[in-house]
């Protein structure tokens, strides 16, 4: 057996090259998906596609109501989830004492942040659409999406606050500052880049989700803008779903589907890149 053993150098060379190969294949396949959608989608994009309502069952026209609908849903959900989420995160991390109650709250938010989005859709439909009788509406969809990102926002806020060194807080107290002053003037300024980045990332999550809005707000075909918060809305991810599976002429709707997927990806990637830019800006500034 001894004779067949490879030297440790050959061994390393083999392993490293294999790893390199696999990694490049992974990155290549991920780029393939992105490239496939972009190449097929970009030819569909023009001014009319972005500014007109869909017509003829989605095979003609544009996707303007879906773009506006997604923006409205994002706006609605963050108005609800951002303040409550960030404030709760602050309270849980800064005020609650380490006891069983805090443990329960923490484990519940942890769990909810991992619960599949379709479960939120289920809940939102039963509570907002039927029990509270909002119907399929912008408000029901926004609240459902808001509930979905609420645990994520709380976690992000908590993680950010936890990363602040306790000596900073103690220094502030020693100078006679109150708890609120310490949080506002010492703790938050240190960690708010992380909080802001987390918030932006949750926007990207909200804009791409389909499952929670399937049964809470989405109209498959509504070539106009919503009239009120109790009106149905179109949304990009759901519009894409409809174009893929339930149109009358799927072949004719294909180009529209590629275009919609392109716009959706562009939106999500833009939000992500924006989050990165914000983070980098703050890192540079703090240096």
């Amino acid at each position, binding site marked *: 057996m001894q004779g067949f053993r490879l030297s440790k150098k050959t061994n390393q060379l083999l392993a490293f090259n294999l*790893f390199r190969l696999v990694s490049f294949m992974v990155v290549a396949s991920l780029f393939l998906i*992105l490239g496939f959608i972009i190449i097929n989608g970009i030819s569909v994009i023009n001014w009319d596609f972005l500014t007109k309502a869909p017509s003829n069952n989605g095979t003609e026209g544009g996707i303007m109501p879906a773009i506006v609908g997604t923006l409205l849903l994002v706006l609605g959900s963050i108005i609800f989830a951002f303040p409550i989420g960030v404030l*709760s995160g602050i*309270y849980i991390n800064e005020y609650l004492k380490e006891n069983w109650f805090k443990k329960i709250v923490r484990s*519940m938010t942890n769990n909810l942040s991992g619960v599949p989005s379709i479960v939120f859709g289920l809940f939102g439909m039963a509570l907002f659409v039927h029990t509270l009788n909002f119907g399929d509406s912008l408000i029901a969809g926004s609240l459902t999406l808001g509930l979905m990102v609420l645990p994520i926002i709380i976690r992000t806020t908590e993680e950010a606050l936890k990363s602040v060194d306790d000596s900073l807080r103690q220094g502030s107290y020693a100078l006679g500052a109150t708890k609120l002053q310490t949080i506002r003037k010492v703790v938050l300024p240190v960690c708010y880049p992380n909080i802001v980045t987390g918030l932006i990332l949750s926007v990207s999550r909200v804009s791409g989700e389909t499952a929670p809005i399937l049964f809470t707000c989405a109209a498959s075909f509504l070539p106009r803008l919503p009239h009120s918060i109790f009106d149905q809305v179109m949304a990009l991810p759901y519009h*894409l779903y409809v174009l893929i599976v339930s149109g009358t002429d799927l072949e004719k709707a294909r180009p529209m589907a590629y275009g919609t997927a392109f716009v959706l*990806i562009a939106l999500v990637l833009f939000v992500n890149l924006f989050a990165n830019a914000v983070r980098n800006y703050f890192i540079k500034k703090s240096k």
Partner: protein
Amino acid sequence: MKFRKAIEKFSESILFASSTVTTIAVLFIVFFLFKSGMGLFSASPLEDGYALAVNASNPVKQLTSRQIKDIFNGDVTNWKEVGGSDDAIQLFTIDELSSNYTEEQLGASLEHIPACVNDYVSKNKGVFAFFEKRFLDKSFSGRMVKVPNITLAEFLNGREWYPTATPVAQFGVLPLILGTLWVTFLAILIAIPVGLITAIYLAEIAGDRMRRFLKPVIELLAGIPSIVYGFFGLVVIVPFLQQLFNLPVGETALAGSLVLAIMALPTIITIAEDAIRSAPVSLKEASLALGASHWQSLSRVVIPYAKSGILAAFILGIGRAIGETMAVLLVTGNAATMPSSVLEPVRTIPATIAGELGEAPFGGTHFKALFALGIILFIITFVFNTLVEVIKSKKSS
């Protein structure tokens, strides 16, 4: 000074209020989910507003939903087989009235239907009648057959998921659980080795510039909406598999697994890479100083050190794959049958909820069954999250 104190108190109460709202909302979601889902086990599988009846002389008082299904499918044809006397089972629905009764007997505006149903049931010894409750005569002489409520065992062990079947719906969740497990298991079989290798490459082998380019790109890809991955799967992977294996349909468990594997990769890579990089440099340096090669130090020192973090990455990846809805809905074909091969259509739990919630009447048995599926998903997430927590706390202690 007093003013400042008031502001302090006020702000504190706002913080308290919002965390109370959150806690209540969170607890309410869990409570609501369980309450609605548990409603399934006090619901009848019999179609709403319908009744099942037999002749008064028939000793059968109660039938399970499975027995009823077998009878209506023609698999059971004699009362003897379900605990009755030796009589042939004679199925009867409202449609058969017109061949047994004249228009005159039924009445001009069909007002005598209840009487006719009563007459038919009382005259035929082996009858098994299924009709709407509004056709129940006031002096009905037959006996109503009781259908026991759905039990937890039936729900978890049932091999058939026909939520809209008549006269009795079948809520066997086994094919859905198996479908979910098959798709997920195959997906992680692909994603775990590939993800781990890529994470190791990024953390230890790749040059600094390569890493700084790839890491954000992979993180970015985690943000692509699942519906887009599903779309790609449907137009590229599904036809490819269909041609490759010469299948009647390309929408299969394997297609779902491939899409899920691709989707889970960014999560697994990012978290595993963080875990590997968190290993102290001194460990690696000590190993190198002892004459080990880079690869030996990696495989025998750094990765064993990071294994709990890597495990957490795997579990989070699996958790994501199990709950994924839209992509799977598009590419797995959604046949609610017991899977027998990865090249056949299957249906997962999330895809079932997404596919059927639109048609399930609010508050009905089917609706409750979908909530029960939601509970299963919740419990799975709970278990996986707890596992991650346990691993994390073990590592830190």
